[in-house]
């Protein structure tokens, strides 16, 4: 799963610790999500999106491995280039 957490956080000038505090998680968790080492649970992903006042798909989008799990009948979003590709 890809995300633009680091960019969103930088826009708001929040440190990892600050964001972690807001969400009640550890700084390591925020760092691991930002660096792609860890995919958050659905509740945490929603909480993150809510914190940035965005929709979840504006924060997270599937990478190639996740996209391979998508049903072939549905619309396939492009994966590694950022959110909003389904609008193209």
């Amino acid at each position, binding site marked *: 799963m890809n995300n633009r957490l680091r960019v969103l956080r930088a826009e708001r000038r929040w*440190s*990892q*610790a600050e964001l*972690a*505090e807001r969400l*009640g*998680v*550890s*700084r*390591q*968790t925020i*760092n*691991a999500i930002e*660096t792609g*080492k*860890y995919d*958050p*649970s659905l509740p*945490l992903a929603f909480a993150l999106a809510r914190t940035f006042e965005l929709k979840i798909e504006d924060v997270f989008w599937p990478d190639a491995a996740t996209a391979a799990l998508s049903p072939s009948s549905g619309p396939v979003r492009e994966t590694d280039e950022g959110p909003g590709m389904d609008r193209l």
Partner: protein
Amino acid sequence: MTSTEFTVRDSRNHRTFSLWMIATMILFAAATILIDGKWIPPAAGWALTAVTGVLLVVTIHSYMYFLRHADELLRKVHLEALALAFGAGVVVMMVYRLCERLGAPQLDINDPLLVMCLTWIGGQVIGSRRYAAGEGDE
């Protein structure tokens, strides 16, 4: 936050678990010495054994409480460490059973337990490093 890995809640719950674990280990060591040395009557030995068992259950309960309320990444690290410890225990026990049949000295029941404890601790270290914040992170 008290550290990069633990939230305040995690630190508190982990401290509670650690204190119960230390208390249990001290009681276990004391009970072993007292029973082995025959310094207490058998009835007291049984009572001490029962108390040790109760403390162990409380310790495990406090660990499960810590896990259930832990930060999700921390929980993942601990669950992976537990899986590794369980796997190591199974491997040691099964493989050594065969080794015993081939003439190796008989295994003490505490040996696989020690392997499991050490692997559990090692697994936590490995897991923490895997997800650790890199240099230059805030």
